[in-house]
């Protein structure tokens, strides 16, 4: 068992398992956000449920935070160790001949996503925690008491074109990160079999369509608020 805690393969499993969790989270985040295009009421109700359900708030939210922090921290540890494994670098290295840009630059796409998450937390998560747990307002209602506040807040954030631009750029980098990461996670846990070809196609579709969906949602609320 000791190897499962400290070996190079253990680090691969850990990155892959946290990636699976984050990819599943991303899918459910998208599923809720996309309702904001079709029905403000549905989006409000789902948001209120997610924001006030004790199981989600006190059990799943800490797990999510741990997953996010762990994935980033392990990513940095791996990058540091891997760079140190070749102290004298090549004078000429043609990485593009044998691997994709995405696979070689996961640390940079990851850093862009990390920076974006800082903005995202500043925009939504910190105000949400402040309202609920510091001001003690768990009602989810607007200040005037006329309906839920979530949809209003979402539209308000996407009024700023600079913020929308940053969101779009971040999701492009998320797509690049997922284009390698989705299938790499399966490879890391040993899934390379007759289903791999189909899984690769599905992975590419996921990596492009989910970030694209988030981009469309941001643009929709910017132009049709």
């Amino acid at each position, binding site marked *: *068992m000791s*190897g*499962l805690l400290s*070996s*190079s*393969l253990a*680090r*691969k*499993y850990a990155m892959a398992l946290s990636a699976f969790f984050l990819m599943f989270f991303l899918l459910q985040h998208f599923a809720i956000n996309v309702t904001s295009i079709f029905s403000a009421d549905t989006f409000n109700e789902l948001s209120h449920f997610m924001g006030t359900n004790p199981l989600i708030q006190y059990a799943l939210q800490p797990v999510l935070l741990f997953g996010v922090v762990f994935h980033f921290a392990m990513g940095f540890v*791996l990058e540091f*160790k*891997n760079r*140190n*494994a*070749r*102290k*004298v*670098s*090549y*004078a*000429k*290295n*043609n*990485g593009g*001949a*044998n*691997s*994709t840009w995405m*696979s*070689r630059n*996961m640390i940079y796409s990851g850093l862009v996503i990390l920076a974006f998450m800082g903005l995202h937390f500043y925009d939504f998560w910190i105000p949400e925690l402040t309202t609920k747990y510091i001001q003690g307002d768990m009602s989810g209602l607007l200040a005037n008491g006329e309906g839920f506040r979530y949809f209003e807040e979402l539209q308000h954030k996407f009024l700023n074109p600079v913020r929308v631009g940053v969101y779009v750029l971040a999701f492009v980098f998320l797509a690049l990160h997922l284009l*390698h990461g989705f*299938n*790499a996670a399966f*490879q*890391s*846990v*040993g*899934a*390379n*079999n007759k289903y791999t070809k189909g899984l690769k196609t599905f992975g590419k579709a996921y990596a492009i369509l989910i970030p694209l969906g988030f981009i469309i949602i941001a643009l929709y609320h910017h132009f049709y608020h």
Partner: protein
Amino acid sequence: MDLILKIWRQKGSNDKGQMVEYNVTDISEHMSFLEMMDVLNEQLVAKDEEPVAFDHDCREGICGMCSMYINGEAHGPDRGITTCQLHMRTFNDGDTITIEPFRANAFPVIKDLVVDRMAFERIQQAGGFISVNTSGNTQDANAIPISKHAADEAMDAATCIGCGACVASCKNSSAMLFVSAKVSQYALLPQGQVEATDRVLNMVKQMDEESFGNCTNTGACEVECPKGISLENIARMNREYLVASLKG
């Protein structure tokens, strides 16, 4: 053809080393890359200069000794070949060719383009074998039924010549393609089952101790491997290691 060569020169393992430029003339396009290096060395000796040290042995793509990093790729730009199988027709008259040793902390430079790949040997010694009684009562291997599919996959893995191109090409200097090929060639056969658990645990432990990097699934190793060892072997090793860790 005439060429400009930028070659890594390093007097010994403690020397800092540097890239040095040479002009080499009268190279035939039919020569192998190593023959071109032979011509360069003859020209250097004629000028009373130190010839370039490089590894070579069989010169027919089997031994895995030739270990040059040519124009940014292990064994040069062609696929499925070692450096001795790379021919000068791949290049054009007047080209500048950059030639470096395989780079990784686990493969320290001994001299010029020669690197120490004993780390691979130590990984093999940690578990890349089966313990067979060779006293004369050994069972005929053909008496054990093995499916064609398993035999083919095991043979594919066993074609690894341990050249180190996977490590040299990997941005992380990871040895996982090599180790996984050695784990797989036994894991797929009944003869390898007895020691399967210890083998994968010990070989991965030794690999980690040799200061190779971590695999991030870029797939560069598979592309640059002269024997076409597949990433499927790494996936198999990942499975084998997980099961062995839970058992052990």
